[in-house]
C-alpha cells in the first residue's frame, strides 16, 4: 500500500558527488530538500580513485569552492597528500590534486548533509517518477512511500540500470556491491527521455602488506601542501606517499593471451567507454607497440590497508587479473582485496537539457553527473551544484543561474554537454577551454565568489575575507609599481643567475616581473618592504603582470563571445520555418535548441552563414 511520506520543494535522487552538492545548494538557498540514496553508507562514496582534483578537475574543485560548494572543503578535511601538478608548464595548467581518505570523505560529507538545515537524508530506492495533474513530481520508493516535490534532480551515477562485468561473469549491480536502481529507468523513458548505455571501470584494491615497496619509485606530496578551499587556513602535513611501478612484456603477454575473455572484446558490453580512462587491456590493444605502462599505487585511507592501483582498471576474469598484476614489479605476491571490474549504466544525452541542466521537455526535472554523460567526481559535483542552485531559483521564481564558457570550467563543461552532446563519458581537460589563460585555478575566487555571494551561498565571514584579499591585492600591485630597484651588483647577480639581461639604470619591480625568468621568490632578498600577506596574492599579481598581453587578448575574445551570448533565441522556434537555413542546420538547431546565438554558433553543422541568417531572422 502506497502512503504519503512528505512534501518537499526539491528531491534529489542519488547522494554521490553530484547529488550531495545539489542537495546542499538547494537547502542552503532555503528550499525544503530531501536527498535519496540506496544506501546511507554510500553518501559521498568514491567508488574509483581515492583522490580529488587533477588537471582541469582541480580547477573545477576550486570553482565549486569559490561558489560556495562543499567538495573542496571536504577534500581539504580528508586529504592525505597534496600535489600541484604541472608546475613549470604555466599558470593556466597548474592543477591541484589531493589523495584523500575515502571513508573519511564519505563520512564527512554524510555528516554535513545530516547537519544541514532544510535537508533530509533518506535511504530509499526511487522506483517511479511521475508528474501529477497539478504539475508536482511524485516519487515512489521501493517500500511504496510516496514523496511529492516541486523539482527533482536526478544524480544516479552508475546505479541506474547498473551491470557489472568481470570476465565471463556479469550481474546487475551498482558500484562497491551496492544495489543498482533497477526501476527508475522505465519512468524516465515514460517521461520521454532517451536513455543510452555508457560504461566505466575501476582497478583492483590490494593489500598493502602484500606489496614490496623497496624498489618502487616514491611520489611525495608538495611541501608545504596547498589547500583547495579559500576557507581552509591551515591544511597540516602530508600524511602518505604514493608509489610508481610499470607493466612489462610479461604483463602484456598475459593480457594478450586472454583478451578474448574480456567482455568488451568478446562483444558482451554495448556501453561506450571513456576514451580518457581506458582499461589496461584497451591500452595494450590500442597502443600495441608501447612496451610498458605506468601505474600508481595509492593508499585508500589511514585506517585501511587497501591500496588502489591507478592505471590498471580491467574487466578481465579474476584469475587473469591476479596473474597480470603479479607480473608487475613490487606486486609479485600481491593479494587482491576487491577485484577490478567494468560497470555499465544508463544515462541521457545531455543535448536534451538547457544550460540550467533542466530537461527542456520536462520542466522541473534536472540531471547531474554521470547521468548526464560525464565522468569523474569533480565534473559530477560541478553539475550538481549548478542543478541544485537552478532548481531552487526556479521554485523561488528567480532568474536562472547560467555560467558561460568564459566564466569558468564549470560553464565550459555544461556548455559542452548541452551544446555538443557526448559520444563517450566526458572528462574535463584544460584543452577544452579556449579561455584557459583567464580561467586559472588561482583566480577562481575572483571569477566566481561575487556570483556565489549574490546567490547567497557565501557567508559574511568568507565575503569579508574575500574583499579584504582584493584590497590587499590592489595595494600590492601599487607597491610593486612604485618599488624601484637600483642597478646594484646584487640585483644584477640575481638577473644573471636567472639567465636574463642585466640592468644599468633603476628598474621598477613591476617591469622585472614582466620577464618570464623573474618571479617573486628570486627577488625576496632585495624586496625588503614585502608585506606579510597570503602568498596567493603574490601569485595572482605576478601572473596578471607577466601574462598581461595574452590575458588581454583572451579578454577581447571573451567580449566578442559574450556579445553573441547576449542575443537570445526564443525557446519555441521551429527552425525548419526559418528561410535561408540549410537543412542540416535546421535539424541540429531543432535538436539542441540553443538559448542564444553564441551557443548556436558552437553546434557542429551550423555554419557561419547559418548564423547570419539567424541574426537577421532574430532582429525581424
Amino acid at each position, binding site marked *: 500500500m502506497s502512503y504519503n511520506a512528505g512534501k518537499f520543494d526539491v528531491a534529489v535522487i542519488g547522494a554521490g558527488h553530484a547529488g550531495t552538492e545539489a542537495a546542499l545548494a538547494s537547502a542552503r538557498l532555503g528550499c525544503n530538500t530531501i536527498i535519496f540514496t540506496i544506501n546511507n553508507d554510500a553518501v559521498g562514496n568514491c567508488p*574509483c*580513485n581515492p583522490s580529488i582534483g587533477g*588537471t*582541469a578537475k582541480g580547477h573545477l574543485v576550486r570553482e565549486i569552492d569559490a561558489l560556495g560548494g562543499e567538495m573542496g572543503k571536504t577534500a581539504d578535511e580528508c586529504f592525505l597528500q597534496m600535489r600541484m*601538478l*604541472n608546475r*613549470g*608548464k*604555466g*599558470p*593556466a*595548467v597548474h*592543477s591541484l590534486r589531493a589523495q584523500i581518505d575515502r571513508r573519511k570523505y564519505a563520512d564527512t560529507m554524510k555528516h554535513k548533509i545530516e547537519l544541514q538545515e532544510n535537508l533530509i537524508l533518506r535511504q530509499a530506492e526511487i522506483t517511479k517518477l511521475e508528474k501529477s495533474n497539478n504539475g508536482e513530481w511524485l516519487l515512489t520508493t521501493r517500500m511504496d512511500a510516496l514523496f511529492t516535490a516541486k523539482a527533482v534532480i536526478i544524480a544516479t551515477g552508475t546505479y541506474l540500470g547498473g551491470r557489472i562485468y568481470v570476465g565471463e561473469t556479469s550481474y546487475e549491480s551498482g558500484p562497491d556491491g551496492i544495489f543498482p536502481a533497477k526501476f527508475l529507468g522505465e519512468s524516465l523513458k515514460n517521461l520521454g527521455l532517451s536513455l543510452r548505455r555508457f560504461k566505466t571501470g575501476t*582497478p583492483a584494491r590490494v593489500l598493502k602488506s602484500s606489496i614490496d615497496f623497496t624498489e618502487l619509485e616514491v611520489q611525495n606530496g608538495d611541501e608545504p601542501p596547498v589547500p583547495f578551499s579559500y576557507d581552509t587556513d591551515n591544511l597540516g602535513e602530508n600524511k602518505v606517499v604514493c608509489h610508481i611501478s610499470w607493466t612489462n612484456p610479461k604483463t602484456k603477454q598475459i593480457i594478450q593471451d586472454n583478451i578474448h575473455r574480456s567482455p568488451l572484446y568478446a562483444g558482451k558490453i554495448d556501453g561506450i567507454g*571513456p*576514451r*580518457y*580512462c*581506458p582499461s589496461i587491456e584497451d*591500452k595494450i590493444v*590500442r*597502443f600495441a607497440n*608501447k612496451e*610498458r*605502462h*605506468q601505474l*600508481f599505487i595509492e593508499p585508500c585511507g589511514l585506517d585501511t590497508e587497501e591500496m588502489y592501483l*591507478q*592505471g590498471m*582498471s580491467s574487466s578481465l576474469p579474476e584469475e587473469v587479473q591476479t596473474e597480470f598484476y603479479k607480473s608487475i614489479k613490487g606486486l609479485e605476491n600481491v593479494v587482491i582485496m576487491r577485484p577490478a571490474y567494468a560497470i555499465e549504466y544508463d544515462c541521457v544525452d545531455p543535448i536534451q537539457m538547457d544550460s540550467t541542466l533542466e530537461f527542456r521537455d520536462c520542466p522541473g526535472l534536472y540531471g547531474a553527473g554521470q547521468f548526464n554523460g560525464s565522468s569523474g567526481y569533480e565534473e559530477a559535483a560541478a553539475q550538481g551544484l549548478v542543478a541544485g542552485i537552478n532548481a531552487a531559483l526556479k521554485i523561488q521564481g528567480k532568474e536562472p543561474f547560467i555560467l558561460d564558457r568564459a566564466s569558468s570550467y564549470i560553464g565550459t563543461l555544461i556548455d559542452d554537454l548541452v551544446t*555538443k552532446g557526448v559520444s563517450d563519458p566526458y572528462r574535463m*581537460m*584544460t*584543452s*577544452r577551454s*579556449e579561455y*584557459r*589563460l583567464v580561467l586559472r585555478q588561482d583566480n577562481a575566487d575572483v571569477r566566481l565568489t561575487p556570483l556565489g555571494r549574490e546567490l547567497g551561498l557565501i557567508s559574511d565571514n568568507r565575503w569579508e575575507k574575500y574583499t579584504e584579499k582584493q584590497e590587499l591585492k590592489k595595494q600590492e600591485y601599487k607597491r610593486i609599481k612604485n618599488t624601484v630597484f637600483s642597478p646594484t651588483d646584487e640585483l644584477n647577480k640575481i638577473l644573471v643567475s636567472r639567465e636574463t639581461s642585466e640592468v644599468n639604470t633603476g628598474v621598477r619591480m613591476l617591469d622585472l616581473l614582466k620577464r*618570464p*625568468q623573474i618571479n617573486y621568490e628570486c627577488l625576496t632578498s632585495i624586496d625588503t618592504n614585502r608585506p606579510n600577506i597570503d602568498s596567493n596574492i603574490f601569485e595572482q599579481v605576478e601572473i596578471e603582470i607577466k*601574462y598581461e598581453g*595574452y590575458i588581454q587578448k*583572451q579578454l577581447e575574445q571573451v567580449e566578442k563571445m559574450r556579445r553573441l551570448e547576449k542575443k537570445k533565441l526564443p525557446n519555441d522556434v521551429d527552425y525548419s520555418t526559418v*528561410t*535561408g537555413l*540549410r537543412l542540416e542546420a535546421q535539424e541540429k538547431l531543432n535538436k539542441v535548441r540553443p538559448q542564444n546565438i553564441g551557443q548556436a554558433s558552437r553546434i*557542429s553543422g551550423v*555554419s557561419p*552563414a*547559418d548564423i*547570419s*541568417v539567424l*541574426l*537577421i531572422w532574430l*532582429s*525581424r
Partner: protein
Amino acid sequence: MSTIAAISTAQGEGGIGVIRISGENSAEIADKIFKSVSGKKLSEIEGYRALFGNIYKEGEVIDEAVALNFKAPHSFTGENVVELSCHGGVFITREVLSAVIDAGAVLAEPGEFTKRAYLNGKMDLTEAEAVMDLISAKSKSAARAAMYVKEGTLFKKSRAVKESLLTTAAHLSAWADYPEEDIPEVTDNSVLQSVKNSIDVLSKLLSTYNIGQAVKEGIDTVIVGRPNAGKSTLMNILSGVERSIVTSIEGTTRDVIEDTVVVGNVILRLSDTAGIRQTDNEIEKIGVEKTLKKIESASLVIALFDGSKPLTDEDISLIDKIKNVPSIAVINKTDLESNINTEYIIKNIENTVFISAKNEDNIDELRNIIEKLAGTENFDPSAGIIANERQKNAVKKAVDSLKEAESALKFGFTMDAVTVLISEAIDYLLELTGEKAGEEIVDRVFHNFCVGK
C-alpha cells in the same frame, strides 16, 4: 559594431570604382587615407557633402578620388557612411580598399551592408526576404568556393600545416592534461621548429595571393629596356591604339605607367618603366631602382632590345637580372638593319622573338609566346594559390598567431601561452578551409597518446 568596408561596384572594367565604408568611425578612418584639396576633413563636414582629394597608401598618393559623406541615419546602411569614388579598374580599387583596411576598417562579409541596412530599419519586409535569398546565395557560392579550395593544392598545403600544428598542439595538451602519464617531454625546440616550419609554408602561401590576383585580374607584366628601344610603341600595340579603353594611371611620383590589356585569353597588367642605365642623377637613380624592384615583383618580364644597335653593358646586365624569371626577349626594329649579336640573349632567355613594333611585324608571334607562357605552371590557378581576400586574411591571421607563439617561445614564456596561440592558428586554418573549429585537439590527444587511469 565595427566599421566595415568593401568595393561596392562590380569588379572589372568601368569608369569609376566605389569603396564603401560603413560604421561609426567611417569618416575618421577615411580621413586617415584621404586628404582633400581644400584641407577639410570628412569627420568635420556635414552629411550629403562631397570632397575632392587624394588617396594615400604608405605615404604615397595612389589615386585621386571624390569622397561622399553620409551621416547616420541618412545613408544606405543607416550608419555613418563614406563612399570613395576613385578611378575604376580592379587594381586601383583594390589598392584603395587595402589602404582603408590598413586604416582600421574591417573587410565586410558578403551581404553585410545589406544586412546592416536591414537591421537599421532601412528596408521593409519584402526587401528583407530578398536579403535572405541574397545571403543564402552568397553562402552557396562560398560553399562552392570552399569546395574548389578543398580539391586544390591550397587545401592540401594548408592541411599539411594544420596537421603538423594539430600534432604539436595535441602533444602539448596531452603533456599538460596528463602530467603523470608516460608522455614524452615537449621541448621548446621541437615546438619552435614546428611553429617555424608552419610560418614558412604559410608565408609562401601568402605570397601566392598576388599570383591568384594575377590570374583573376591580370598577370603583372613589366616591359623593360633601354630608352628608345620601343617600349612605348610596343605597349601601345599591345594595348590597342585607343588607350582610353583601358585604365591608365600615371603615377605622380614614379615613372611607371600601367595598362590592363587582353592578349588572347590572357589578361596582362602592363607596366612601362624607366630605362635601366648607370646614372649619377639622383632622380633617375630612383627611377632605375623602381624598375629593378618591379622586375623582381613582376610575374612576367618583356625585355626589349634595339636590334639596330649592338648590345650594351646595360643590356647584358638586364639579361643577367631576368634570366631566372619568366621572361620574353623581344628584339625590335627588324625594319632596320640588324646590328645586334643575339647569341647572349638566346643563350640566357628561352623565349626570343624578332618584331618590328613600328610595322607591327610578327606581333602575333609575340602574342602566342605570351599566351604560351601564361598557360605554363607559373600561372596555373590550381597550383595552390590564395584566391580571395577572405582566404588571405585567414592565412595572415594564422601567421600572426604563430609569430606571436614564436616570440613567446623565444622570450621563455610558459607552454600554456604558447599552446593557446597555436590553437588560435589552427582555428584560423580551419576557417580557411571552411571546416569548423571544435574537438580536433582533444580527439587527437586520445588518438595519439595512451592516457588515463
